[in-house]
């Protein structure tokens, strides 16, 4: 184990968890309100980021970056609303499998649509955060008398900060606004919500719109870090297990799940000497970041089928 690099990998991993948490949050949000697990979230991410690129790029509208981002968010809101209205509302009352397949099919459709509109070429997303001047933080720790310095990419830090700001804004929105209250009520029970006069179709629409905004923000954050291409839609695969680790319906669970996934992915990459195993196995483990979330998920499913932070079911007769 390389103790010198442990903090570096742990912190990088944790910060990487920020955007994952944000994606997980977008999925949980929709699930909570309408019990739809949105497998198309990755494509919403992609479309949001692509739209931002198009509005900002001289090949497209050539707007200033801030205006482009706002325009992209608006597009994402419309996308979210359209998805809810056109694809999921007709599915009300259909079995689970149909709903799952609907979002999977939607994902494929949106992927095709993106290629249709934007082609397969990669895009260079405008640089928002400097990529050449990483932050160097000297931790108040030493290892073998060497001070431990952590090097953090600027976009990593800022992505994390922005992701967390989004999380906090959302939590405040749920806690302190009437719409937030209506959404939380709808999430609990559709029938009861209807009985107190909440228009649940509006709530579904709002959830999808917010999910669209969240997706666009995550997409833009990730695109600024490493460019923009079609593979952006599969980044979300790390967020699916995060959602379930957290417990599917829990907002703090999604955020913690995302951070845990990021942390775990960071830690497995840690230089490990082949002390316990051969060098091949050690290398395999270093390259296991893509499956670590799913292995964690399997373990958690066996131990706690409702996820780590799943809401305890309050059962009554």
């Amino acid at each position: 184990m390389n103790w010198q690099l442990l903090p570096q990998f742990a912190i990088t991993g944790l910060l990487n968890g920020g955007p994952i948490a944000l994606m997980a949050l977008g999925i949980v949000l929709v699930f909570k309100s309408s019990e739809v697990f949105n497998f198309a979230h990755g494509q919403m991410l992609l479309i949001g980021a692509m739209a931002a690129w198009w509005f900002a790029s001289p090949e497209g509208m050539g707007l200033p970056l801030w205006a482009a981002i706002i325009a992209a968010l608006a597009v994402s809101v419309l996308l979210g609303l359209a998805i809810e209205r056109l694809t999921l509302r007709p599915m009300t009352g259909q079995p689970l499998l149909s709903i799952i397949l609907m979002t999977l099919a939607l994902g494929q459709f949106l992927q095709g649509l993106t290629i249709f509109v934007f082609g397969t070429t990669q895009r260079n997303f405008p640089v928002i955060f400097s990529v050449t001047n990483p932050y160097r933080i000297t931790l108040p720790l030493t290892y073998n008398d060497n001070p431990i310095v952590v090097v953090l990419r600027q976009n990593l830090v800022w992505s994390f900060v922005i992701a967390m700001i989004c999380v906090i804004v959302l939590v405040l929105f749920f806690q302190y606004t009437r719409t937030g209250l209506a959404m939380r009520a709808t999430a609990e029970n559709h029938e009861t919500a209807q009985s107190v006069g909440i228009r649940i179709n509006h709530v579904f629409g709002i959830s999808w719109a917010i999910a669209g905004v969240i997706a666009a923000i995550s997409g833009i954050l990730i695109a600024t870090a490493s460019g923009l291409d079609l593979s952006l839609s599969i980044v979300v695969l790390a967020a699916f297990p995060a959602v379930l680790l957290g417990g599917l319906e829990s907002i703090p669970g999604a955020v913690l799940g995302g951070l845990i996934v990021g942390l775990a992915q960071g830690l497995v990459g840690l230089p490990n000497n082949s002390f316990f195993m051969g060098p091949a196995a050690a290398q395999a483990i270093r390259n296991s970041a893509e499956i670590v979330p799913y292995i964690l998920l399997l373990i958690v499913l066996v131990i706690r089928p409702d996820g780590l932070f799943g809401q305890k079911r309050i059962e009554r007769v």
Partner: protein
Amino acid sequence: MAVLRPSGDFDTSYEHDLAVVRQRWQWALLLLLLLALFTLPYYAPAPTVSLINRIGIAIIAVQGLNILTGYTGQISLGQAAFMTVGGYISALLVGAAGWSFFLALPVAGLGAGLVGLIFGLPSLRVKGFYLVMATLSAQFIIPWLTRHIYPSLLNGAQGINVPVPTFSLPVIANTCFLGTTFNAELGTCVYRFATPSQFIHITLGVLIVSTIVALNISRSRLGRALISVRDNDLAAELLGVNLFAYKLKAFFIAAVYAGVAGALLAHNLRHINSQTVGLVDSIMFMGMLVVGGLGSNLGPILGATLVVLLEELATVLAPPAAALLPTLAGGATAALKPLLFGLALMLFLIFEPRGLAHRWMLIKAAWRLRPYAR
């Protein structure tokens, strides 16, 4: 399950009532169809044969999924991963160990079945989305393993080249018959299933067996137990069905089908790696099943045919689409495939959620209700 039956067809015994193919003319039709399929290479253009070969492999994979999802109600996004397992097992047995393909094929199925069992274990505790995720994890973990374990054997991410299936016959009167060629190394006449026109006979043979197995499952104790798990698992348990055992059986059978389909695919492509079949294929299989009709034996056949044809349509439409929209350049196929598949699946989910097989039943019933129909 048909309610309506052509007139003049009476049940004279329970055996007759239980039979799948009921009448002489139906037998004749079936035989004709099989004959037409097996002689396909003689009259159909090669691309068509290749297409039907791909459809056949897809049908086998979807039949397995139908048993798991259609009959037992367990949603799985791992079918492609189990195909990978089957493909690798057969590739190694035939390639590295020198087995006959026809021996390796069932072993590949069983091997994939065992792996399927492992990923079916969470079905004991979890349902719904959680189970979907557990099977999705197979879709990540299995390809990862093929890339990282035993690199000397599995050749990491590069994957391995898979031999062409061969069939050896003894040399009779110094001559090799039946399109075989003499192999000096083995001293026998060898038939190579190399081109689609040759390989399609293997695919069709396996397809016949897999269809018969699926039919038998659906009309026997096993199938009823599986369906009762799907329709009402609590009632099934109270009626004496061991839920866990039957869920695992379903996972096993589905993975066996996947393993066989994977082995066929690997030998057909002559190459397998961790990405040969992936998550998108798992989604496709699920889509084929829904388009065809869940829980119907006709469903996988109709669904796989339609979706593969749709893919083919995307390939055909791509050049004109690219000509219309120059920005698409070469991405037209890439755009059209998911676009058409996604759109078709969404439309089916909204307008025909019970799939083509159900529509077919309705048409058949309507036909029989016509006066003097026979």
